[in-house]
């Protein structure tokens, strides 16, 4: 409803029923009813009619289309077949009564002929001699690459041929299989066995010692944990104790005190006497003089070096030669170290395998009752690591936190101060 057209009752409040009855604009509805009644009188309501009653399909061509290519007989037949298939009503095939085990194979589409499926032949790999057969890749026959370079390029691009391998660096000079020592025999000779086991025992002892050393390092050296007894003594300080007990304690305590006190030497602050000062100054003077004299002498010697150039040359030559030899030896040693020693590969630390051993009573001396020790696989793994063929993994070192978080804590005595509390 338009705002300016309010008449009569409509002038009042819109909330009232009166407005609903008289103020509503009903011209739209009236118009619509009028149109509808008129349509009904003239032939029928258009909205209710079907499309076919109102429109007719124009089937005559208005513009000349390019003529469709004439179908061949075969094509026409195919088209007919398709149209026939479309029009035929589809009826479901009767369901098979028995159990269908397998889905029927799909028929070939279109006019493809059915090929008999070849059974997959499991080809047993025949052995052949790699070292005499030529394994260089060849170009497929359908590619005509008469140019040799082009062929080479093609093979490289399709990754059939690989570039020349880089020279292999020798990783180690150590033997792949290290034979166990004579002492590790299942029925060893006594001297050999003793030597072998002795070596293992010595290594073990070394380990124990080092462990002990670290333990000693961790524990406080000068401090002592106070025992109950000591505590009691402290409490009983000044009390009269039976002399029998007192004696013992006296001795004990005195010892402890001796151990624990490490005092610095007293700092002395003494002035020099006049005499001493004089002496010192004199000594300094003499020292200075001596230094000057030596310098003079060296200068003189340098001046004389002009006459012994030949000798100096020789000395220099000798030195150079020596240096060269040393460097050569160093180089050799470096290479040898690289080929025989463990390199640092990765974060982990190399731990050598422990040599297996049997105790004397476990050595039965016959093959039937032998107790195998150690594991060959473990040995292999260590050997590979020793020969620098495998990296050794380890955990990343944990980083320490560099910045700390602020934390707000209200202390108890602060908390206790509330409104109305008095200042003492």
């Amino acid at each position: 409803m338009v705002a300016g057209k309010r008449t009569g009752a409509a002038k009042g409040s819109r909330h009232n029923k009166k407005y609903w009855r008289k103020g509503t604009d009903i011209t739209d509805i009236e118009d619509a009813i009028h149109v509808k009644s008129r349509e009904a009188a003239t032939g029928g309501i258009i909205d209710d009619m079907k499309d076919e009653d109102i429109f007719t399909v124009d089937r005559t061509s208005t513009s000349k289309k390019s003529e469709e290519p004439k179908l061949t007989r075969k094509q026409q037949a195919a088209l007919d077949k398709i149209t026939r298939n479309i029009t035929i009503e589809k009826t479901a095939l009767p369901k098979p009564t028995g159990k269908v085990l397998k889905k029927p194979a799909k028929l070939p589409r279109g006019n493809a002929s059915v090929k008999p499926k070849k059974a997959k032949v499991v080809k047993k790999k025949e052995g052949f001699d790699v070292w005499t057969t030529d394994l260089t890749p060849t170009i497929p026959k359908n590619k005509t690459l008469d140019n040799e370079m082009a062929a080479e390029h093609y093979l490289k691009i399709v990754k059939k041929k690989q570039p020349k391998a880089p020279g292999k660096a020798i990783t180690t000079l150590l033997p792949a299989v290290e034979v166990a020592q004579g002492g590790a025999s299942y029925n060893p000779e006594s001297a050999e066995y003793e030597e072998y086991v002795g070596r293992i025992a010595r290594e073990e002892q070394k380990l124990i010692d080092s462990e002990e050393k670290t333990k000693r390092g961790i524990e406080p050296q000068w401090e002592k944990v106070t025992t109950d007894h000591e505590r009691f003594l402290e409490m009983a300080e000044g009390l009269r104790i039976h002399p029998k007990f007192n004696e013992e304690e006296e001795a004990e305590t005195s010892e402890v005190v001796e151990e624990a006190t490490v005092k610095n030497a007293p700092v002395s602050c003494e002035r020099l006497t006049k005499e001493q000062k004089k002496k010192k100054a004199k000594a300094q003077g003499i020292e200075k003089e001596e230094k000057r004299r030596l310098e003079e002498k060296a200068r003189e010697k340098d001046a004389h070096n002009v006459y012994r150039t030949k000798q100096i040359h020789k000395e220099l030559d000798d030195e150079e030669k020596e240096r060269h030899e040393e460097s050569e030896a160093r180089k050799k040693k470096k290479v040898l170290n690289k080929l025989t020693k463990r390199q640092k590969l990765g974060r982990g630390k190399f731990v050598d395998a422990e040599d297996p051993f049997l105790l004397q009573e476990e050595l039965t001396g016959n093959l039937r009752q032998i107790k195998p020790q150690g594991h060959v696989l473990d040995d292999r793994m260590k050997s590979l690591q020793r020969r620098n063929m495998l990296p050794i993994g380890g955990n990343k070192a944990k980083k320490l936190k560099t910045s700390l978080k602020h934390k707000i804590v209200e202390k108890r005595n602060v908390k206790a101060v509330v409104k109305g509390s008095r200042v003492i």
Partner: protein
Amino acid sequence: MKDRFKQKYTAGAAVAYMSRKQALKKLQLTLKDFRRLCIIKGIYPHEPAHKKQANKGSTANKVFYYRKDINFLAHEPIINKFRDYKVFLRKLNHLKAKKEEDKIKKLYENKPVYNLDTIVKERFPTFGSALRDMDDALSLCFTFAMLPHTRVLKEGMIDSCRKLTAEFMHYVIESQSLRNTFISIKGIYYQAEVHGEKITWVVPHERGLPHVTDVDFTVLVTFVEFYIAMLGFVNFKLYQDIGLFYPPQIGQIVEAEEQETEDYKEKIYSLAKPLAKRKDVEQVEDSEPLDLLGEDSDALAQKVRETKSIKTMFKGAVFYLNRECPKEALTFIIRNGGGVVGWEGGPTDLKADAKNITYHVVDRPMDKMEVNRLYVQPQWVFDCLNARRKLPTEKYMPGVALPPHFSPFTSEKAGDYIPFERLEELRSMGKDVAELEAAIPKTMDELPMRKKEVKPEKPKGIHIVTGQMHKKSKEKFHETVEKGQELKMRELMISKKHQRVYHSMKTTFKRNRNDALKLKKKAKMAKAAAV
């Protein structure tokens, strides 16, 4: 013109090396695949000489590879197979979740596989280079053949290890090339000489391969995967060389299907029966040159004689193995020496009471013995091979405390203490032990006693004697004194740098001598006590 403003880390170690992380990024591989690739291609990490330079200023411990190695790896077609496999796994997961059995089956049929032939040839351009790397391959395969299969250790891999190792042992038997063996508490070591290369490997004891926890099986499996491919080719070539069928065949030729049967496989794995030889290959007999060499003490002649004695050691002997003996090891050594082996229920099916048995190997005390055969403990067979001859069996009778089993791999130095038994063994092997024997220090009672010369008594009092010309003494004593003085002078002349080494050498020599002397005395005492 020289570059004035050269950037840091654009030359030298910084570009020659590549960290593992960088390599992974370049190759677009996961760490697991990269590890496998490196092992298969034989590319190993290296520690750079200038670590800080290679690491672009950081000193963190990283794994470095040569950049050229990684660039080479990038061309490897196997990488694509790895990626295919990843796709395969993803598809498989998908189909398994959907429970489409048909498609899963089909997918498995088209599982991507890779071929290691070219890589074997690339890593070992010649047959000799492959033989030189056999130690690792054999040791690993022999161990794997004994393991139970797990999720990582596939059954197929264990089977092929078993097959390939059995084939190799057959080759060693047929070519009679086993030289040394040593039973340690870890396992049994063998050494064979194939095409002039000494191949050493270790076989764990049949019983008791304990479970290991700190071994990364995925790494070892990759090694074994490559070694299986390599061993297949090496075995083929070895078989071709001595005119055997490959795969090996026993007796008459059988069809391929029959070769797959468990029964036939067991027969081959037992090593007890000789392999069939091809008719079209001439068998080479190399017994002639020995006569030409004659009784020469040349090292070569010595070696030839040794091999000859190994080959004919057990010729004509028939061994019966009691059931508690380690069959594989014993069969291997006996047949290597030309003997015939059998046991109850074995492929040769030798009965314990057969008349033709010459040696009965037994590892437990026996109460019933037959007269016409010799009873020995298993160690006898091992010791015979090391001694290169048939040792007397008295010391090896069942129930007797065995003589010590020595390692043939240790070489004796002059001046060490060498036990009497070992000396005997060495002597029996035809080695010259005179030098070793002479170097053993003598105890006091062995030294020749110096006779006290009886001097004529001087007449007392004043007397006359005929004069004597003073002549230089020709006595040995003086000579030795002179020599000693000379030595002392020479020692004085040694430079300070070398003096220390000299003295330490001298002390060790002395110590060794004393030790040897002590041991010898001890042995003597023990011997006296036993008597």
